[in-house]
């Protein structure tokens, strides 16, 4: 017998055995408490004694840089510079003068290129085909119109307002994979809230990434929000807890909770997030939004992210970031279509003012 093969088989079975055992343990409620709240990586930190985080409530600081003049961005303006090159598909469709297989292929390709994904694309195209048949459409340009209508229909009807508590602070929690723009999106919403005359507390519960609290502190100063932070490696749960009590005593209107980026397939990190959510729910503040931040350049994995985060922490909406680039963010169509989770706001740049409402018509117009 080939030794390597044997070794592999033994290894496989052993791994399966261990894996099964771990899963079995995990499914027992009593053992769940074993999950450490601290991030499992960064071994230097894990041995640190479980002291209360050194929480500092920094007073409302004046904005460091007096920003010259603030212009509210619009998607159309942001997109204007690049989108002209993308009309090619449809001039092609229109110029052929009739609807044929190529028309459908072109439409499908346009949606796939926008990261809508095969299943949702197929669903939408089928709906358009049905209407083309029923309405006896022969003008290819009309097909494009119908496609737009179908896509807009898919996106309309959702409540995009961010939830607010009747009294006391409303809590909005931000979750997502690494680097999508959680912290920056918090800065943008903080700015919007402060501009509306609300008192804002930021909870720096990303204690994992190096200098993450620093980054949020800079935004707190720039936007005129307060921040509650601990040391690197501190327990995110206690920071959230402290932020909630700070918000209550200060009479804050909103608490924005920044969390460490995590890949949705890391079970321990997702469990940690679930715990964090529970901590928020146990305090006086009212958890009104759990927002999944999605980068517009994300491909089909975005759907898996949404599915897993929804399952773990029951997300209430999506923040779509980086729509100022050429990426179309079509994956949010799949997220809406498959999971019924709407986009609530959109990020279109790197400053605190670069936040816009999600407008389905505008979004669809920019898709192709």
């Amino acid at each position, binding site marked *: 017998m080939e030794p390597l093969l044997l070794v592999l088989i033994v290894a496989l079975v052993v791994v399966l055995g261990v894996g099964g055992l771990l899963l079995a343990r995990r499914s027992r409620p009593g053992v769940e408490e074993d999950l450490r709240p601290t991030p499992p990586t960064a071994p230097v930190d894990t041995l640190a004694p479980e002291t209360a985080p050194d929480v500092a409530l920094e007073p409302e600081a004046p904005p460091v840089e007096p920003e010259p003049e603030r212009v509210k961005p619009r998607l159309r303006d942001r997109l204007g510079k690049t989108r002209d090159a993308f009309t090619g598909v449809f001039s092609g469709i229109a110029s052929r003068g009739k609807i044929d297989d190529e028309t459908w292929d072109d439409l499908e390709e346009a949606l796939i290129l926008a990261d809508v994904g095969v299943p949702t694309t197929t669903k939408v195209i089928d709906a358009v085909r049905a209407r083309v048949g029923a309405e006896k459409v022969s003008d290819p340009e009309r097909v494009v119109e119908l496609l737009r209508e179908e896509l807009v229909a898919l996106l309309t009807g959702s409540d995009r307002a961010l939830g607010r508590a009747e009294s006391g602070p409303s809590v909005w929690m931000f979750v997502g994979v690494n680097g999508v723009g959680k912290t920056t999106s918090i800065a943008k919403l903080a700015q919007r809230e402060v501009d509306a005359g609300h008192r804002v507390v930021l909870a720096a519960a990303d204690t994992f990434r190096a200098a993450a609290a620093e980054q949020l502190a800079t935004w707190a100063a720039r936007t005129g929000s307060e921040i509650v932070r601990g040391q690197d490696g501190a327990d995110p749960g206690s920071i959230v807890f402290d932020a909630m009590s700070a918000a209550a005593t200060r009479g804050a209107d909103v608490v924005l909770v920044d969390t460490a980026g995590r890949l949705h397939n890391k079970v321990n990190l997702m469990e940690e997030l679930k715990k964090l959510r529970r901590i928020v729910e146990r305090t006086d503040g009212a958890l009104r939004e759990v927002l999944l931040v999605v980068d517009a350049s994300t*491909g089909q994995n975005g759907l898996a992210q949404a599915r897993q985060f929804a399952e773990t922490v029951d997300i209430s909406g999506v923040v779509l970031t980086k729509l100022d680039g050429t990426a179309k963010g079509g994956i949010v169509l799949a997220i809406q279509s498959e999971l019924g989770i709407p986009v609530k706001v959109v990020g279109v740049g790197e400053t605190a003012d670069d936040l816009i409402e999600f407008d389905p018509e505008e979004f669809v117009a920019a898709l192709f």
Partner: protein
Amino acid sequence: MFDALSERFDGIFSRLRSRGKLSEADIDAVAREIRLALLEADVNVKVVKALIARLKERANGAEVQKSLSPAQQVIKIVHEELITTLGGTSGKLTMSPKPPTVVMMCGLQGAGKTTAAAKLARQLKSQGLQVLLVAADLARPAAVEQLRVLGSRVDVPVWSVPEDGPQDAVEVARTALDEAARLGRNVVIVDTAGRLQIDTELMLELKQVRDVVNPTNTLLVVDAMTGQEAVNVATAFDEAVGLDGVVLTKIDGDARGGAALSVKEVVGKPILFVGTGEKLEDFEPFHPDRMASRILGMGDVLTLIEKAEANFDADVAQRAQESLSKGQFTLEDFLEQMRQVRKMGPIGNIMKMLPGMPKEMKNAEVDEGEINRIEAIICSMTAAERRDPTLINGSRRVRIAKGSGTSTSEVNALLKQFKQVQQMMKALTGGGKRPKLRGLAGMDLSQLQGGN
């Protein structure tokens, strides 16, 4: 190993099995499925088209091999084609004959440049090189601080400008070279701000940074979760600053990673490294074959074989073989094998590589501490108990639990699970006869889950 994808084609091909050659019609029939698989993996539509065209050319008229079904054969051709496309040397930077060797990282916001810079610094340092990290991302708040922290973790100096001084990335880059000379550093890694490829102002800044540091390696950092946009990004960065290689990040996620293929196809430069986790040692050379399997949705068996080859102790393997051929696999063997497997890396990572692993296990984040507890339980047993677990009665259980600092229910769970492992070993090895690896894929793995 082609099982995952080939199932989809078996229907199409079952009627063709008797034919000797793959015909054009056969290939057309399967091409659509392959196209879908590649699109689901985020390979760019245009790249998919080019690939399918090449595939048709190669597959047309190919002899059907006896050992493979036509479906498997087409997939094998696709797989090979993907490897060729993704291929090229990997894992090595170009070293400048006139030090310092300069590496410039660039890419979109949030791709993972800063982390990749620190990981690369760590790796080069461990190879005995003197590295200097340069914090030229002055756009994102606290990016400099982030690099400083990471630099100190890997014990590599970081060159940066004070926050209250002028914030000019080009100036940071320029002065970095003097600093490198002063400190006698032979590698300089420049972290730059994330930027959209259509941001002309920032792209100009990047060109200026490049002009002052004159990089030996300009690396594009790409997030493995990127969708169709990857080609535009790669093309634009390549045109603007001229890329030498690519770093693919966050592949510890479950994205299929078609972006790798798209980027490779448009810039034609090697994918050098992959980021496989948040820890600074999670950085590995890129393997085209593994990525090809992943894009096609096949298990990462190759990596596993490689790791096993590198880490398994021949004696231990020999002992396992002996116990198995005697039809007995004891807790002692289990312990020994578990230790072997752990040498291959964290068990969680290994689970991800196995073909046919149940999703819950694949995605499980394994706490190595929990595995230590399993080890501790076995270690608290006497030699006799390890050979024959039926000896373990109630009082022995209490003793073992106490000795290992666990609970009796944990001991019970382990014993129960071990019984199943034993049965499985028997089934697989057929009592010492030649084992069938193929059988594994079809095996009912559910019996091993939740052995409680």
